[in-house]
């Protein structure tokens, strides 16, 4: 394991700038998640570190050494792809052994066998070692794919949305397992996803990418509570943050530069009220079982907030909405520090 740094790395495909001057420091043993929508440059960033793409400018350092010109095999990284991750003509065992059988590594057969079996146990696929890799379920395939990265002891693990093709339950299970394995091994891991739950639950630090730029880098809590701008605020939080002009709801002591308000569900206090003192009403309610999403209308604006499942509120009820220390943004969309 090793430190990995990007220093002002840029990459364009034709006229399309995929990654714009991204700088990023990944410390040894850290779990970093890059979060962003499709086309934000997440995968390109990973491929630049892996050596599958060459940077147009900037430096990539692995363990303090500049690797810009090194080929993928010389960089000592492991990569888990989003799909097509297993060699279809090989068995599970051979897939796991493949990186170790590389002529560059010259590992003894006994060592390979021991390593493969240990990793298979770690990713809980040891009962299917002799299966053909195409005869596995989606979850098993991704376990093997992760295992194929784990058999090596690389400088860094790069994972490109490894769980995105799985169903929700499996995704949840593997998320936990991946986090467990990472902390057991103390592995340095750069993980790319567009799933905010994966980012929030697994990351030591999250990097928010938008249009090829690294907008903010911080712990999940920092990013959630103190988003750099409206874009970042919208990436995290379920339901989405409510963005309101200043005049919709009464606010106390707003900064003078504030141009809009970001109100997450915990920033909204909702009380049943009669029509006279209410400043909003309930449009409809989504029942999600363990919680309710209240869709509210206030000052002609739509808002969404969480309510506990036993809340007596009904659609059409007038409510009194109060803001509790919400997030303020200035005219250009940046958060105003409070």
């Amino acid at each position, binding site marked *: 394991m090793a430190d990995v740094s990007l220093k002002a790395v840029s990459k364009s495909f034709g006229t399309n700038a995929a990654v714009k001057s991204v700088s990023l420091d990944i410390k040894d043993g850290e779990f970093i998640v890059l979060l962003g929508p499709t086309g934000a440059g997440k995968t390109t960033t990973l491929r630049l570190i*892996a*050596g*599958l793409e060459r940077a147009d400018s900037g430096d990539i350092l692995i363990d303090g050494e500049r690797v810009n010109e090194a*080929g*993928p*095999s010389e*960089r000592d*990284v*492991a*990569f888990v*792809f989003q*799909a*097509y*991750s297993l*060699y*279809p*003509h090989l068995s599970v065992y051979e897939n796991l052994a*493949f*990186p170790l059988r*590389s*002529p*560059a*590594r010259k590992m003894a057969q006994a060592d390979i066998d021991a390593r493969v079996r240990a990793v298979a146990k770690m990713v809980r696929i040891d009962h299917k070692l002799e299966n053909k890799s195409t005869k596995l379920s989606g979850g098993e395939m991704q376990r093997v794919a992760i295992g*194929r990265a784990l058999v*090596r002891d690389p400088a860094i693990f790069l994972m490109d949305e490894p769980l995105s093709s799985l169903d929700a339950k499996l995704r949840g299970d593997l998320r936990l397992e991946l986090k467990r394995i990472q902390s057991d091994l103390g592995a340095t891991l750069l993980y790319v996803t567009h799933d905010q739950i994966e980012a929030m639950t697994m990351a030591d630090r999250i990097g928010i990418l938008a249009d090829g730029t690294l907008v903010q880098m911080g712990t999940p809590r920092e990013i959630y509570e103190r988003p750099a701008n409206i874009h970042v605020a919208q990436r995290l939080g379920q339901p989405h943050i409510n963005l309101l002009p200043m005049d919709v709801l009464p606010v106390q002591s707003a900064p003078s530069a504030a141009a809009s308000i970001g109100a997450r569900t915990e920033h909204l206090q909702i009380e049943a009220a009669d029509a006279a003192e209410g400043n909003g009403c309930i449009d409809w309610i989504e029942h999600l079982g363990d919680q309710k999403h209240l869709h509210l209308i206030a000052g002609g604006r739509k808002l969404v907030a969480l309510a506990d499942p036993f809340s007596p509120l009904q659609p059409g009820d007038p409510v009194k909405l109060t803001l509790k220390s919400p997030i303020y943004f200035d005219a250009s969309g940046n958060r105003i520090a409070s």
Partner: protein
Amino acid sequence: MSGASKHLATAHSVVEPGPWAKRIAGTLVVLYALITMIPLFWIVTTSIKTPPDSISYPPKIFNFTPSIEGYCNLFTTRSRQTQEYIESLGPATSRCDQIARDRSMVVVGESNYWPRFVNSIIIAFGSTFLAVFLGTLAAYGFSRFRVPLKDDLLFFILSTRMMPPIAVAIPIYLMYRELGLSDTALGMILLYTAINVSLAVWLLKGFIDEIPREYEEAALIDGYTRMQAFFRVVLPQATTGIAATAIFCLIFAWNEYAFAVLLTSGTAQTAPPFIPTIIGEGGMDWPAVGAGTTIFLVPILVFTILLRKQLLRGITFGAVRK
């Protein structure tokens, strides 16, 4: 409820043809197969007829006595001798010798069929190997790398198939005479390779395009060079395409007649121009021609049967994603 479940049990997908459609389709396929088998049947039966039976009118379809005379005549040369001379010889040394003597002839040696057959094997398999080997490398290059003028180059490669090859027969004939490639196995291998390689590149490019790049990228990251990744990851997955391409190339090279007639006459002559030259006493020796053709069919038949799964999948490639 039971009615509903019974209905479900007999229900079939709307895309699956009904039983009548299947029966009609099956009958048509069998009929078509039988029609295409007629020439084959005729060749094989001719090879086991006697020369008089083979040209009798009305033709004898089933009512003839099988004979190995065709095969004897194919593999031997004979000369006519007087009855006294034949009687002066010792007893016949083989069945073929006996058959020849019954027709007042003696076997004087082996015919050229076997060397011609071996030529066919060397030239057809050699050129198929070369065409598929070069085609795979070229197709991989076109599929994976940024090649300047890629589309133009591919079109140029394809354009070599746009005229009948025999249209360039005279230039090739003159060229081969100058280069000393006339009537050499090397010359024929090069020629068939040149004709087949465009087909191979196009077919294989389609197959290799279908193999996701992620596999090679994974192999590169796993510590393999691009060449190692090509052999260990791309080739095993391209076997279907390679097999299908190999069959197409082999069938062409094996059956090619026009260039073989033009460019070979002796040492490098292949079987197709040789077989029709088998002339017996008083005209064509049809049973020998039939025997030569029957034997000539065997290698391609074996090769196709061995690879028929790949061939089927190869013909329908791209249609169904596994």
